């Protein structure tokens, strides 16, 4: 029987970054449809992280459900006018810099594409990881386009664009307390920007895991979850844009 040369040892992918001793294994749920695959099952960790993300996004959805219902109620409310002793609607639609907002939307969409490419890139690297660990096997030039970095740049670009929208509004003296429509516009833009900034932090963390030489499984989970969060931020922005367009 032919023997393998001693330096051609295929290492199993490391799955735990701080593991020591024998970590407990997971049964993998009790419904019997997913077998317990032991401690090294990275697929379970990925699924768990994604599940956590979906649950977390539900909370974000509820936050914006609260804002939206407040907007719809407030928009229809009559206001008492002291001068005329009558009730009238005080909602004056806000004049938003639509061109700038459209540019920002384009930047955000581009960042979503970039994010998705980063996600696929790491998945590909992940699949090739066992091959790469074989000494003597070269995968050619591994330095692809830095999709993660470009996503961060585009995300920051979007945030700067949103900041410019605020500056334009301020230049028009459309301050937050001028009219309820202004209040909601600032509120929705600001809350979305904060959430997106959280996504940028997550991406920077993902990039840091690359530099810190964390195992590729951990990196992939971080990038994958950050990517789905980022896509959700894109959807959320579309929703906010529609609200500002229809019910401003």
């Amino acid at each position, binding site marked *: 029987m032919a023997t393998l040369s001693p330096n051609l040892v295929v290492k199993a992918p490391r799955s*735990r*970054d*701080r*593991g*020591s*001793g*024998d*970590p*407990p*294994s*997971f*049964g*993998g*749920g*009790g*419904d*019997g449809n997913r077998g*317990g695959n032991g401690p090294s099952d990275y697929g*379970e*960790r990925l*699924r*768990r*992280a994604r*599940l*956590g*993300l979906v*649950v*977390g996004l*539900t*909370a974000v*959805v*509820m*936050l*914006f*459900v*609260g*804002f939206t*219902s*407040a907007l719809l*109620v*407030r928009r229809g*409310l*009559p*206001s*008492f006018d*002291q001068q005329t002793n009558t009730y009238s609607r*005080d*909602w004056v639609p806000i004049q938003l810099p639509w061109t700038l907002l459209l540019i920002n939307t384009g930047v955000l969409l581009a960042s979503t594409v970039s994010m998705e490419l980063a996600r696929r890139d790491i998945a590909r690297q992940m699949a090739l990881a066992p091959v790469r660990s074989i000494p003597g096997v070269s995968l050619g030039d591994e330095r692809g386009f830095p999709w993660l970095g470009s996503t961060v740049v585009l995300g920051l670009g979007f945030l700067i664009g949103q900041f410019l929208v605020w500056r334009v509004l301020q230049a028009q003296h459309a301050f*937050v*307390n001028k009219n*309820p429509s202004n*209040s909601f516009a600032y*509120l929705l833009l600001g809350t979305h920007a904060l959430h997106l900034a959280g996504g940028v932090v*997550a991406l920077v*963390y*993902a990039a840091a895991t690359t530099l810190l030489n964390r195992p590729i499984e951990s990196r992939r*989970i*971080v990038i994958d*979850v*950050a990517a789905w969060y980022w896509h959700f931020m894109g959807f959320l922005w579309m929703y906010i844009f529609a609200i500002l367009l229809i019910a401003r």
Partner: protein
Amino acid sequence: MATSEVVHAHAAPQGFIRKYIFSLDHKVIGLQYFFLALTAVWVGMILSLLMRIHLIWPGANIPLIGHIQPETYLSLLTMHGTIMVFFVLTTAPQGGFGNYFLPIQIGAPDMAFPVLNMLSFWTTFVAFVIMIAAFFVTGGAPLHGWTGYPPLSAMQSTGPGEGLGADLWITSIAIFCAASLMGALNFITTTLDLRAKGMSLMRMPLTVWSWFITAILGLLAFGVLLSAGILLLMDRNLGTSFYIPLVVVNGQVMGHRGGSPLLWQHLFWFFGHPEVYIAILPGMGVASQLLSTFSRKPIFGYKAMVYAMLAIGFLGFMVWGHHMFMSGMNPWSAFAFSILTMCIGVPSAIKTFNWLGTLWRGNIRLQTPMLFAIGFVSLFVSGGLSGPFLAQPTLDIPLHDNYFVVGHFHLIMGVAAIFGIFAATYYWVPKMFGRMMSESLGKIHFWFTFIGTYAIFMPMHYLGMAGHPRRYSQLTEVGYLHNLLPLQRFISIAAFITIGAQVIFVINLFWSIFRGPKASDNPWDATTLEWTTATPPPHDNFGGHTPVVHNGPYEYGVPGAAGDFVMQSDPAVSPGRAH
């Protein structure tokens, strides 16, 4: 993102700080929540003590505080409600016992996201510190009640506590929302994804079901409260008019116009009503668990219990309007909310029926945890029965702003949930600390507390029916309330005695933790997984192996079994009761 950290790959930490302060171990975090709630409950109880003293001796000169002014009384009332609802009733049953026992009961080594779990506790802690800080700023704590109704809560100039104190209050609530959302995320993911082999959903102990459903309610409710709180902060500090209409304060026209105080009420109660169930559902789970264990009988109607809890949680989101019958809502809306509210009586009745069915002809062991579980059922019935009264818009009009409501919600949401916490404490302290609590002290504590709470809150219903308004600080100067003063004195004295009896509990708790008799691994002959492991449980809960579940959670009185029960992890299923 920290959330995707490896689950429980961390070895048992060695240093004091990593082991006891910033621990990732769900058990340590559960104890941290528990002791935070224990601290908070004493703060809240002392506030109620001050209120009860003031109500019957308005001229009393209290050390450090002096004479209680009307606005001080409102501050006490606000902070009592807020601290009790958020930092006790939400924190202890879910954050405390849920954190400690949910992973063990489903056979998991830890929560799904340990780092997030630690963050969620420390965020709650920060929220508590900020809440307490409201006492010590200029103007003191806010006056607007735990419900924070605008316009009182929405402007800086409406009262002495409505300046910085109210800002701190709202900030604290917002931070608490974030903490609760992190906790809910962890509970849901853990329950769905980390169950041991064989632990199907319908084999989960009812405690796990109650924590799971509570987490779902929290996930859907706290986000809305957060949105409402952000709008309130903007109204207060940025001059917006979400909640504030054209308002004149002290003869001065404020700059706001067009907002609606009712908008806050809708958003608040959309959170506020599920919050009631967030407080009580874990108590229901614990009561089910204990009634079955100490009656040596399977729980009566396990599936009905699960579906009833789901129904209560679901309906809980559709009844917020019954807190607003007095707001001038459309009578048709009130009618709809009223019908939906009374629908909740159906699953509640199912639960009560099943609890009694579990007790029926059981081999009942009246140990302290069982006494508190029975006390829970008693208070749940007594407090719940006044619910359908208040659910009727016409009856709510006279009853809404008087002591009837105070009696109602204290029985059902306050002390019933507290009894759930007590039952859980007496039941699980042997597992958490490895020591038994004193039975005799526990029974003394139970009878004082049980009779005491009825003596406090039952008469409040009569006060309410006699038209006694709530939230008033001064009673002795009002003519038509004179005849009711003896009853108020009775309530106050009952409150002093009941609060005093809680000292017995604290002594028992701390004496037992350090000096109590050593507990065996399964002192109550219970079946769920936490009793299969060592006492107290090791760092990874099961000492390196993963339990496999073969049975349902309440296999008591099994024919042909060696004892009178079969553990969930016992592979020897009796032929008489194959699951």
